[in-house]
């Protein structure tokens, strides 16, 4: 999770800059580099998030699986104006069962990445709202977001929008 935007302004206007739509198979060659940029950004935060050498091939497979999975949300952000049709961002999310807790279905935002030029101006807000709406349509009663603990920009972005940490993931290498 990068910081797709920090503007507190309404998301109105964000749609003039980008348009979010469900990803199609032919988008994948353009979405793979965006997903890899996000994973390399995550690597900056923590050496335990070191990107594998075969990450590119893996990214392709992961996105293909997303397209097949009805529980998955895979969105492509298209530029507008001069950049019409250019893919400038990616959103990956999924709906998981919560067998022990209520609400019973959790919408998890796995990855959000936008090219630097398309950040701010309420674009992040717009991505979050659109993704949340689609997760709710799939029955999610709670929305969560995964990102590196050290990514304070993401933490601030979500905190401003009512998110708080509920589960911590601690790690050590073996």
């Amino acid at each position, binding site marked *: 999770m*990068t910081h797709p935007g920090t503007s507190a302004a309404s998301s109105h206007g964000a749609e003039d800059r980008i348009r979010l739509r469900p990803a199609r198979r032919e988008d994948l060659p353009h979405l793979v580099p965006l997903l890899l*940029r996000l994973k*390399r*950004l995550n690597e*900056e935060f923590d050496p335990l998030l070191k990107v594998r050498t075969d990450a590119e091939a893996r990214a392709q497979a992961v996105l293909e699986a997303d397209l097949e999975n009805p529980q998955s949300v895979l969105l492509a952000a298209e530029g507008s104006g001069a950049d019409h049709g250019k893919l400038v961002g990616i959103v990956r999310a999924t709906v998981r069962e919560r067998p022990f807790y209520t609400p019973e279905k959790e919408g998890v935002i796995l990855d959000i990445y936008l*090219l*630097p*030029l398309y950040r701010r101006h309420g674009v992040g807000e717009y991505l979050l709202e659109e993704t949340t709406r689609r997760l709710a349509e799939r029955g999610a009663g709670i929305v969560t977001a995964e990102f590196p603990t050290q990514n304070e920009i993401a933490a601030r972005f979500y905190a401003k929008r009512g998110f708080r940490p509920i589960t911590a993931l601690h790690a050590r290498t073996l």
Partner: protein
Amino acid sequence: MGDVARSSPPDAVDPSSAEAEANQTVELGRRAVRLARFYHGKFETVPSVPVRSLEDFAVWYTPGIAAVSEEIRQEPELSFELTGRWNTIAIVTDGSRVLGLGDIGPEAAMPVMEGKALLFRTLGGVNAVPLPVAVGSAEELVETVMRLAPAFGGINLEDIASPKCFHVLEELARRLPIPVWHDDQLGTAAATVAGLLNALTLTDRALGEVRTVLLGAGAANLVTARLLVTLGHDPHRLTVVDHKGILDADREDLDELMLRNRWKYKLALQTLGGGRRGSLSDALVDADVLIAASTPDPNTVKPEMVRSMRARPIVFALANPVPEIWPATAREAGAAIVATGRGDFPNQVNNSLVFPAVFRGVLDARASRIPDEIVLAAAKELARHAAERGLTPEHILPTMEEREVFPFVAAAVATEAVRLGIARRKFSREEFLAQARERMSRPAALSKALTDAGLIHPMPDEPRE
């Protein structure tokens, strides 16, 4: 971009011979070590009050002095009136990027800081205290300077690695009520802008129309870019190039820059590579201006790159000790105006033209900070002064010999501080000018008196007159 003391003397330089260059630097180094052994440092503290007998200490020290402290306790601002704070600054470094030596630590940075203090004193009449500090992080450096500040009227940050230096300057400027300056950012940028303004005039160009390439995205060029845009340069005609090529908005390392160097990140989004992609060669095609502040290698900028620029281009090759292209080579390739960081070529872009006068000005006006408006006021005054003496392709900036320029720059700085409403002492430009002249002439008089009296030893390796 070097201080005057860091450049080579005018003789004995043969640009065609890198070996002669190197030999000369080695010889100057040997002499510096010999003299350091002889003089044991460049400063001692000399009282500025009469001390006739120990009885005088009843007022210079206890019991009388307690009343002075009491006054300052009731009105802290009086520390600028009743102590030497008004004219005393700290030269603070963590030793993390000293000259071309790199991260050599605070002890090893001391000789350089002493040299800088000598320049402040000689050219600006400012009492500068060299203060290398042992700190780990940027935050520690900020906190340390915060704690030192009550003793000083201003802070000069020196030789701090980029991008740490941006964070440190921003934080201190925001939190301290006294002027804070980082010469590698502001001084060099001010001198560069001054020279460029005159170079544009000489070649009939308008800043709002030119295409400019900045080679190197370190402390100086990031600020030069900011100042140029403030002055009306179109950011989309500004191309920044670093060791990875043109800094555009699609570059793979942009996310990393967002985290580690947000100043450079912002500039990438602001300029969008000036509409260009690729390498330095791609950037320079049809450019009007090149400002290189990168690596000391005369083959960094190739003659064919200069030839690909627009007719009569302006080339600033500011790396020290060796410019990115030799001036003669640049001129042969068509450059109309060439500037370097060295005093042995025409058009030296020298931050020593800037920092002594800027501090004289902000101290005399008792300014609370040094916003870009003040930096630009200094640059414009320098440019104006050079223009008054007559602009030629070999004279776009005052030389270090034109010492009369310093009080004028100081007065321009002080006057701008008053205009901006950040001066605690508000005088007319003429009054500031007279004050600066007087305060800047004192060190030479003092030094001459002490030398004539034999209290400062003549150079041991020079024949006595």
